[in-house]
């Protein structure tokens, strides 16, 4: 056992240990719990950054041990995994800070933070999983650990949302299991590496491989909120703001999208999947989801629900980029894993701030919030403009790469999707911004709490401001090493796409 072996385990287990510690704490020990949470988050972040340098230098980090004959438990840090675990550890830190501020004086905080840490454990496990089996393990653990977070409020609405969520994700998990087991039966344990196993199979297996691909994507598509199975996401937004933020930005939705990336990129291989002819229909589905989510978002009055439909739309950019069979578009899709996370977490933090500080939950109550909560509103505006794809913000980088990549691959229809989606995004975000900045306050705030006389509680204000800063930095400094874009390009180069 040396550092190269232990590091992936350490990264996964920091938040796991934190979860155990937090579960054991009595409810009122909030200071100790805060220390636990933040220390674990910082340690994890430090470890991930350390591995990041290592991976860039080409050091293999791998931990494996056989569970039964032929099935291994593998944690491995490759460029793609590091990108995703980097995202989740950074955002975990800020979400933890936010959640501590958000849940001040509310009941059941131990339960909440325990499952919260567990949720991050599973996310990082998903990121570092080295084979399909390990991935599946953490994927299901994620389902189970997020359920208590979704129903945290314990209201009837929350419980119903939780039930819908479980039905969707467990069914998705079952379908995924079918796919995983099918592949296992066919070729044994499948590790995420340069995909060589499946492409080398005889051509008569192609129909079977296509069916298995469809099963895998259907299973993963539930969490990624692809078109026919996106229904749980807008319902699950009843969860507390930090949960929604994490759910939409890194944990659940992203885990689904990340899984699809793994399957296409590391199991089938982009080239082989393209030859099988499964990518093009998936791309069309992603395009349809992008437009559908945006159209539905237009008519939502509940702020978080509007954001939820926006997630349905935006996460499909990742899938779209994957399906175009062009390295540039692939980089655009991969980088959107990070960019969408940064922008959407900012928006949800801000939505939470409006709800917590002023009691504002609906779009038509937002009039004049810009004057009352300027800093929060600036962060929200940055996130919203980023979603529209206005430069120089993160969303633009994605759009530019996807557009150029799509044209390289000869898929001109993607431009139509991108432009239409941008216009729709503008159509549902700009009215919000108009209300925030340009309308006077008409009625008293529904439930105002004086958390601070300038804006809101600093613990609630700092995270969205920092993530909004990241949204700008990710685009303005896109060309520098360690920018998300650079990492996406590293992943693409190492993946060996033509």
């Amino acid at each position, binding site marked *: 056992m040396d550092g190269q072996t232990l590091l992936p385990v350490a990264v996964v287990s920091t938040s796991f240990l934190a979860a155990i510690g937090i*579960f054991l704490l009595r409810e009122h020990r909030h200071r100790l719990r805060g220390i636990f949470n933040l220390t674990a988050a910082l340690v994890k972040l430090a470890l991930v950054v350390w591995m990041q340098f290592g991976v860039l230098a080409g050091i293999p980090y791998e931990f*494996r041990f056989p569970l039964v004959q032929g099935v291994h438990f593998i944690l491995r840090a490759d460029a793609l995994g590091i990108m995703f675990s980097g995202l989740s550890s950074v955002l975990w830190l800020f979400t933890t800070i936010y959640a501590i501020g958000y849940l001040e004086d509310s009941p059941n905080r131990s339960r909440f933070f325990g499952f919260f840490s567990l949720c991050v454990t599973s996310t990082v496990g998903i990121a570092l999983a080295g084979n399909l089996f390990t991935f599946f393990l953490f994927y299901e653990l994620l389902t189970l650990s997020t359920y208590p977070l979704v129903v945290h409020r314990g209201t009837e609405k929350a419980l*119903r949302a939780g039930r819908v969520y479980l039905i969707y994700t467990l069914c998705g998990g079952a379908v995924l299991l079918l796919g995983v087991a099918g592949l296992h039966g066919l070729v044994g344990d499948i590790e995420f590496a340069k995909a060589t196993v499946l492409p080398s199979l005889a051509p008569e297996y192609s129909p079977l491989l296509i069916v298995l691909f469809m099963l895998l994507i259907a299973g993963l598509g539930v969490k990624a909120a692809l078109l026919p199975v996106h229904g749980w996401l807008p319902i699950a937004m009843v969860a507390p703001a930090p949960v929604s933020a994490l759910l939409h930005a890194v944990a659940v939705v992203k885990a689904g999208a990340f899984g699809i990336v793994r399957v296409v990129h590391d199991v089938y291989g982009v080239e082989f999947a393209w030859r099988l002819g499964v990518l093009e229909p998936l791309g069309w589905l992603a395009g349809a989801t992008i437009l559908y989510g945006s159209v539905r978002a237009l008519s939502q009055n509940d702020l978080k629900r509007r954001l939820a439909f926006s997630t349905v739309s935006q996460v499909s950019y990742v899938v779209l980029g994957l399906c175009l069979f062009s390295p540039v578009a692939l980089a655009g899709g991969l980088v959107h894993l990070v960019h969408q996370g940064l922008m959407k977490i900012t928006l949800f933090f801000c939505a939470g701030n409006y709800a917590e500080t002023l009691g504002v939950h609906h779009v038509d109550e937002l009039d004049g919030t810009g004057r009352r909560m300027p800093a929060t509103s600036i962060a929200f505006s940055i996130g919203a403009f980023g979603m529209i794809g206005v430069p120089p913000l993160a969303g633009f980088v994605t759009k530019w790469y996807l557009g150029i990549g799509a044209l390289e691959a000869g898929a001109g229809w993607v431009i139509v999707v991108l432009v239409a989606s941008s216009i729709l995004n503008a159509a549902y975000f700009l009215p919000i911004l108009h209300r925030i900045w340009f309308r006077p306050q008409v009625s008293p705030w529904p439930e105002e709490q004086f958390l601070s006389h300038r804006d809101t509680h600093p613990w609630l204000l700092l995270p969205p401001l920092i993530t909004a800063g990241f949204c700008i930095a990710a685009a303005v400094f896109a060309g520098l090493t360690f920018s998300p874009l650079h990492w996406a390009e590293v992943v693409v180069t190492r993946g060996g796409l033509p």
Partner: protein
Amino acid sequence: MNATMTAFGLVLAPILPLLLLLFWCVPALRPRVEVLTPWAAVPAVLLVLFGETGMRVELSWLLFGSALAMDTLTRVFLAFTALLWLGAGLYSQGMLVNDERAGSFRLAWLATMAGNFTLLLAVDVVTFYVGFALMTFAAYGLIIHSRDPEALFAGRVYLIMAILGEGLIIAGLLLAASRTAAPLAAMLADIPAAVMDAPYRDLIIACFFLGFGVKAGVPLVHMWLPLAHPAAPTPASAVLSGAMIKAGLFGWMATLPFGLVALPQWGLGVITTGFVAAFGGALIGVHQRKAKTVLAYSSISQMGLITAGIGAGLYQPALWPALAPALALYAFHHGLAKGALFLGVGVANQAAAHWRFGLWLALALPGLSLAGPMVSGAVAKVSLKIVLEAGIATPTWWRYLPLLLSLAAIGTTTLIARYLWLLSQSEPRAKISGIQWLGWGLLLAVSVVGLILLPWVPTISGIPPDPIYLPDLIWPVLVGLVLAVCASRFLRSWPVPEGDLIIVFPMAARGVWNFLQYVLLKVTHFFIWRRQIRHQRKSVEADTRLERSDVEYLLRRNAALVFALLLAVGLIASILNP
């Protein structure tokens, strides 16, 4: 100015407004920022006056590798843009003294200015688009400054059109950039050549023509102009009409394949569109009842002439080397004259009655310039005419283009007459302050004589204002004046609404929207089965919450122990594992 200073200026011109914007957010610095706001355009003015062309600043760490530079064409555009921002900014300073929304106006002002300078100085496509988008979105804040219903409606129309325009522009840029050597970091200068060879050439040209056309007031996407100009505060109208409209022209000149390939169909279509705007703008404009609306239609009309010039460039590539500077000069002259005229609306409301006649004469100067026989206007008009005359070759209709230009000048004259008449009818209002006089005076001076006094303006051979062109310039004005006098005696103005065709749109839009909603509703009903579940499950008992903390604690402890056990097993297994 040496190279270092030029480089510094290139960076400072777009950055300074943004820096001021940031400083404004610090309450302690706010009063200083307020004083400095109008002066934020000064680095750009200095850059124009003393900078070196051909100098290029590489900012490879920015975006996908950004670069700023100034060439001769940029210099002309930057010149009038910066002067306009400076003059109108000074004017706005006086206007904002007792304005409760002064802060919001200044922020929008600075952001729009930064975007405008960035797009002019950008070398690469992405930086150009950054500037364009910043300008587009920030201008909304200027338009709706008063927050009254007209302004909000104008702002909404503007924003819808602008976003559609942005969509077309980004589509065009993507399509064109993907054909350049380095698609992700494409240079603006490579775009025209890429458009020329692109498989979807006509599509790209259409995207650019309409996308930038929203700003440039091309007919059918022009409706925001006559709505926004009267609704926006006077200095905002001045920069919108003087500088932002020209950004559309700049976009055309930077992206369309001029001088590379003959596009007769496009050329003919664009020339026709241009003259439709030129005459249509004048016809509708003379019936307007607000001075600023008249000016807005005059802008549409003037941009129509420029559009016709653009069409000529598409039709005859050989003309372009001479046409580009001529169009830039025209933009220069129109931008500044229009700025002076807009600020004049505010100045004319000045109370002192004995001043009034002299003031009125001063206001007429940029108007005369716009119509032709004043120094700057003469240079601009004659340049354009000479270039178009040089192109008389193949089609017979081409020889009528110079005549059409003269006829358009008749329309301009009547519009200016209408404007001056409306000003003379206006009620005197609040006094304006010294700094406002300064801003207006600056624009007045440069708009009348700027083109021959400013040393760096490129001269087209043979066009110092020569008396032989004088009759050509004067007869349309005389005819226009006679027409205007006759019309004011014998005709009554028709009630053409501001924004003319816009009244059709809400009805059409409502129809389309209702239809879409109906379709969507049907589709959703078909797909969303969970609605039924929701109705069935109404009677779930309300409170299944686990409230007793003891039970909670036990549950959590058990869970924790299970996890700890799992971890221990995992660790032991991994240690035992070789």
